[in-house]
């Protein structure tokens, strides 16, 4: 199926609100923040998933059935996530979903998918609560915040040898979950944080909080949250003369982090945990080159979404397009993806996580650190 057809489908969906699709196709939803403040991540999801679907269709589809993608926009809002999940299940009759992006969307939506017997594979939601509730239909091809928090905490203690750690979060499911996970590992190492505070998503002025961080002489600031708050936050930290090391998680993996900070000089030296370079796998070389040839930089979650689509397609193929059987199958089998071989435990988490530390430089790019 060509891109033009996908586009036409989307346009008609946008116009009509809902369209019953032909049953001969395998309908798969791609759910994430396609609009709103986090739309950059939605674009990553869509680029990865649609490229994978195209490659699978070009190779004959799933047992001859073509994949038809449906874009579902949750804007990272839990309420909207539930309503688009219902739409995907009821009017689009999707059998599987790649998404959502934000944990606070993936978790409420997963209940809808479970009731409807729809397979859900998220490329990005890292909150432990997504898989910890024992739903049979949920999987993720990324790590968990507790694993991510472990990596950050051991880096802070072992490599940086920091004494005064300030832990800041954005009060969201992802941000607070990540900050709490890091904090508990940090405390297990015997380091007690000097400050633990939340900021408000959507605000831009964090000067009061920054002054407070300065007053406790923090040498490390750990931030659980997304780039739209991390950008102004790190800028104001630097403007008030703090030299504390700024560490965050995979919520800031976007070049927009630099533009919201205002200048690459503010993100220089910022550290973040993220899965080992998703473009570095031998199995994904061709796909990476194809993306670059098409003018798409496979940054952030593009490759994860590609891999998530491959997992969905392979499982559906093995289970004769029955999503419930496909979920069963995934619990005991390995899948070859562009990010290497993936296998899942009984909860739907990856057996092996691959978090490493990255550093932003003064050009506004990030690269993996040797650890």
């Amino acid at each position, binding site marked *: 199926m060509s891109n033009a057809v996908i586009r036409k489908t989307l346009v008609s969906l946008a116009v009509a609100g809902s369209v019953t699709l032909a049953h001969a196709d395998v309908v798969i939803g791609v759910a994430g923040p396609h609009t709103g403040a986090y739309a950059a991540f939605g674009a990553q999801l869509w680029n990865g998933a649609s490229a994978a679907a195209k490659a699978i269709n070009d190779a004959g589809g799933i047992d001859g059935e073509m994949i038809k993608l449906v874009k579902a926009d949750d804007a990272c809002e839990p309420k909207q996530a539930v309503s688009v999940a219902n739409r995907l299940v009821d009017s689009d009759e999707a059998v599987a979903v790649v998404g959502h992006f934000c944990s606070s969307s993936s978790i409420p939506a997963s209940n809808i998918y479970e009731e409807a017997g729809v397979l859900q594979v998220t490329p990005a939601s890292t909150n432990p609560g997504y898989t910890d509730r024992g739903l049979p239909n949920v999987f993720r091809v990324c790590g968990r915040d507790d694993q991510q928090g472990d990596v950050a905490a051991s880096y802070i203690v072992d490599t940086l040898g920091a004494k005064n750690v300030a832990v800041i979060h954005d009060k969201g499911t992802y941000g607070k979950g990540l900050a709490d996970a890091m904090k508990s590992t940090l405390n297990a190492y015997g380091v007690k944080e000097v400050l633990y505070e939340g900021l408000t998503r959507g605000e831009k002025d964090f000067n009061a909080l920054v002054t407070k961080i300065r007053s406790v002489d923090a040498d490390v600031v750990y931030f659980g949250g997304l780039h739209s708050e991390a*950008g*102004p936050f790190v800028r104001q930290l630097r403007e008030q003369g703090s030299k504390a090391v700024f560490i965050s998680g995979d919520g800031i993996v976007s070049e927009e982090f*630099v*533009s919201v*900070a*205002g200048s690459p000089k503010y993100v220089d030296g910022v550290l973040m945990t993220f899965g080992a370079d998703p473009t570095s796998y031998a199995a994904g070389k061709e796909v990476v080159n194809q993306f670059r040839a098409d003018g798409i930089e496979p940054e952030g979650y593009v490759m994860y979404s590609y891999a998530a689509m491959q997992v969905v397609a392979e499982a559906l193929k093995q289970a004769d397009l029955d999503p419930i059987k496909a979920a069963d199958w995934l619990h005991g089998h390995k899948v070859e993806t562009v990010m290497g071989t993936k296998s899942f435990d009984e909860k739907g988490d990856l057996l092996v996580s691959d978090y490493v530390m990255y550093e932003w430089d003064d050009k506004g790019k990030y690269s993996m650190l040797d650890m």
Partner: protein
Amino acid sequence: MDIILQQLVNGLSLGSVYGLIAIGYTMVYGIIGMINFAHGDVYMVSAYVTAIAIALLSFFGIESFPVVILGTLIFTIFVTGVYGWVIERVAYRPLRGSSRLSILISAIGMSLILQNYVQISQGAKQQGVPTLLSGAIRFDVGDGFVQLTYMKLFILCASFIGMGVLTYIIQKTKLGRMCRATQQDPKMASILGIDTDKIISTVFVIGATMAALAGVLVTLDYGGFDFYVGFIIGIKAFTAAVLGGIGSLPGAMLGGIILGLSEALFAGLISSDYKDVFSFSLLVIILIFRPSGLLGKPEVEKV
């Protein structure tokens, strides 16, 4: 000690921005008794216009800070003023004389239109402008220091000058006298030959220009913005206007400063998680004791 002084600086600069935006809410309420919910989005539009102005100026090779800032201010204030005029013309004037509720709905609709228009035309991405003015003044206090960035200093000066000029216009000029007359009694003012429709338009334009001033200052200071940036700051500014007494010009400025200071001090000394809870509790307490705000006049029901 140095920390408290630093928090005062933070609060003052945040509060003066709230004050500038609050002026738009309070003047419009004063003159036609409606809450212009699209005002936060006018501020948002001005952030985009700021970025466009800076891009245009650098396209023509203009780099020096005073010229860029002056050019950006003039361009943004003009374009945003036009937005303010058009909004009044399109969304509110046709509803003049109808119930307050329908104007309110029209305002909410205008707010949604502006957000979606910007999202579609500019994209949903986070946008940024380059840093124009960096560096800071440092005061040593005890064994710590208080840092005042040049940008913060500029914000404080520019917003106080803006408020001063506006107060002068309202109190001392003929235009200001006509505004005050229209506010007191629109019917009588029009009998005496004041074109009240024109005055109402002017008030919308003034509100939009003050929001534009805030938009330029904040955008240059924080660097990043998106199409949703007007929502929270709009609500905060509205709170400031109510706090100071909606309808009262000095009240809006005072309310803004009090809100900014209380947020900064509470976040700095107690907890940033609950600073909004504190601000709104303060609002409730003030409204219990002074139902029309700090400097507001109680509304007299005419029989």
